[in-house]
């Protein structure tokens, strides 16, 4: 049972993300580098927020459970805000780097477009966030043990896996929408991304009532997916053409007349 749970939860949590990586990112070295750089930025944001949380814990009353929970909630909110700040910072860095490269090369096209960067950086954030959330849980799921033996929730592992899946995909969508809104100077969209991230993190406070946390998260995931699709230039028409195999790329690849 333990190995099965381990593999099941791993594939649930990381399956789509790894598939995306393998099929869209792994071939292009530049994208891989930007993915890892995105992961690094997320890591730095986590470091800063942990530092602040750690300091507040040290100066607080360690015996009071409510105070500790309150501090943890504060830590979560701070972490979310810092993550978004670092996403913005990464956006600025990428813009500068791209401008620099463009100036040097005197071409009108950049080797990697800002939309691809948005996707890649979002996925980088997602990978790191998901990994940090779930890897320890996965390694525990391998070992001997009984889930919820002291009355804790029985579905700890699988709910963690689903939550992680949602978070990874959400980071990717947030990245796309965020960069697009920065490009178009639509600050309300930026605010919406930050608020949706906060909402997703805050609904997890009702865990272990998983219906209260997973359902809103997946609703937000679908909304963000649709929004990101529209931001990336998709539309219903494109979708229809793609699904009925009548889109240009598919036709060109298969030399079939329209």
């Amino acid at each position, binding site marked *: 049972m333990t190995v099965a749970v381990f593999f099941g939860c791993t594939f649930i949590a990381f399956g789509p993300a790894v598939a995306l990586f393998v099929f869209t990112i792994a071939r292009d070295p530049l994208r891989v580098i930007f993915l890892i750089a995105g992961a690094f930025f997320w890591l730095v944001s986590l470091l800063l927020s942990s530092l602040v949380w750690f300091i507040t814990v040290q100066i607080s009353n360690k015996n009071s459970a409510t105070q500790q929970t309150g501090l943890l909630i504060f830590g979560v909110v701070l972490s979310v805000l810092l993550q978004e700040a670092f996403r913005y910072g990464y956006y600025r860095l990428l813009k500068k780097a791209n401008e620099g490269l463009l100036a040097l090369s005197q071409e009108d096209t950049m080797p990697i477009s800002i939309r691809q960067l948005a996707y890649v950086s979002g996925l980088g954030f997602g990978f790191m966030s998901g990994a940090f959330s779930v890897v320890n849980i996965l390694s525990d799921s391998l070992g001997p043990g009984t889930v919820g033996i002291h009355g804790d929730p029985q579905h700890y592992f699988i709910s963690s896996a689903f*939550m992680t899946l949602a978070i990874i995909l959400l980071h990717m969508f947030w990245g796309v929408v965020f960069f697009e809104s920065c490009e178009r100077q639509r600050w309300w969209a930026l605010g919406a991304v930050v608020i949706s991230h906060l909402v997703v993190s805050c609904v997890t406070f009702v865990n272990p009532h998983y219906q209260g946390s997973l359902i809103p998260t997946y609703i937000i995931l679908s909304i963000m997916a649709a929004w990101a699709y529209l931001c990336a230039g998709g539309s219903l028409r494109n979708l229809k053409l793609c699904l009925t195999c009548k889109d240009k790329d598919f036709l060109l690849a298969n030399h079939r007349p329209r």
Partner: protein
Amino acid sequence: MRLLQLWAFGFCHLLFMNTSDSEEDSYNERSALVQCESPTIPSYNQDHDMSLPQETDTKRRRPVSSGLDEPGPVERERASTPDGEEEELTLKYGAKHVIMLFIPVTLCMVVVVATIKSVSFYTEKTSQRLIYTPFEEDPNSVGQRLLNSLLNTMVMISVIVVMTIILVVLYKYRCYKFIHGWLILSSLMLLFWFSFMYLGEVFKTYNVAMDYPTLVMIIWNFGVVGMICIHWKGPLRLQQAYLIVISALMALIFIKYLPEWSAWVILGAISIYDLIAVLCPKGPLRMLVETAQERNEPIFPALIYSSAMVWMVGMADSSNPDSGELHFTSCHMLKCLLVGFLTGGVKLGLGDFIFYSVLVGKAATTGGDWNTTLACFVAILIGLCLTLLLLAIFKKALPALPISITFGLVFYFSTDNLVRPFMDSLAAHQYYI
């Protein structure tokens, strides 16, 4: 059983890459990883040196083929294209080389971490130490422990400095045969003895019954093929695999036999030493590179790494029953190397592989926490990326250790002490950030 105490005698080599780009200017994946002995054999490289990835997302893309025999098709290509193309090509070349270094570094780390997590031998604390770290760390007194680890570091670094200087002197006076002989001896030790030890421990962990004839057969084949691949000719992938395995074995030995605090201080000190040795005008590594460039020859014809025969300083009541009268391991001190830029490939020394893996391996030994390992892994990759970026800017041999090891150390200590309690609390409540 009595253990004899013997003194180490060692010869130290450097492992480093060729940074002179005179004859080795054809893009060569083989030389991208290690400087190989014989001149590049086209037949082995034929199917490997395919053209660079054709970028389809730019309008003006040109297929770039990397020639094998023609000297510098890349240079020709560059000369005929306008500057814009050159910059784009440089960027893509650079990115491809970065990935070509990421993959072996990642594989080495994966091997080390997998071994550490499964085979408990490498995490068991032993009273035996290497001769290079003679001071025992006393866990009771913090001050004493710190002092001893600093002393251990000084001993280790001075040994490394002496060995490097000997190597430079040997190279300057053209004692090539000596160097080759030493090299072969050291790789022999590594490929046969260390892998035998490793295999033994893996069998013990998984309780696999193995008879000696089969074992001898396996080790013999592994070792001989390794020697041929590394010192003579062999398929590129196999050679790369052997280098990764060798680096991993070496890193595991370091992880096992370096005392706790000494290991961290040594990592820090060796990156500082790397910085000095490569960048200072009188630094030994820099002198080596310059001598090689003056003589217009590849720095070393084969994989060179330092090997010192170490006789284990053991205690009378050692817990290791197999040690017998003599227990010697060959401790390879691979010198931290340079990242060298060649107009075709980027090279990274095996010493860098080893110290990166030591850092990540030590992060993996601490508790059951995977977050620290992941953080160190990402930090090292980013450090390597930055180093390669600097390499592309400055276009001369650079030390590969300082940036990565600094990031790795910073992230290790901060993740272990700050992020771990935070993430543990979050996971306990199932809060997500």
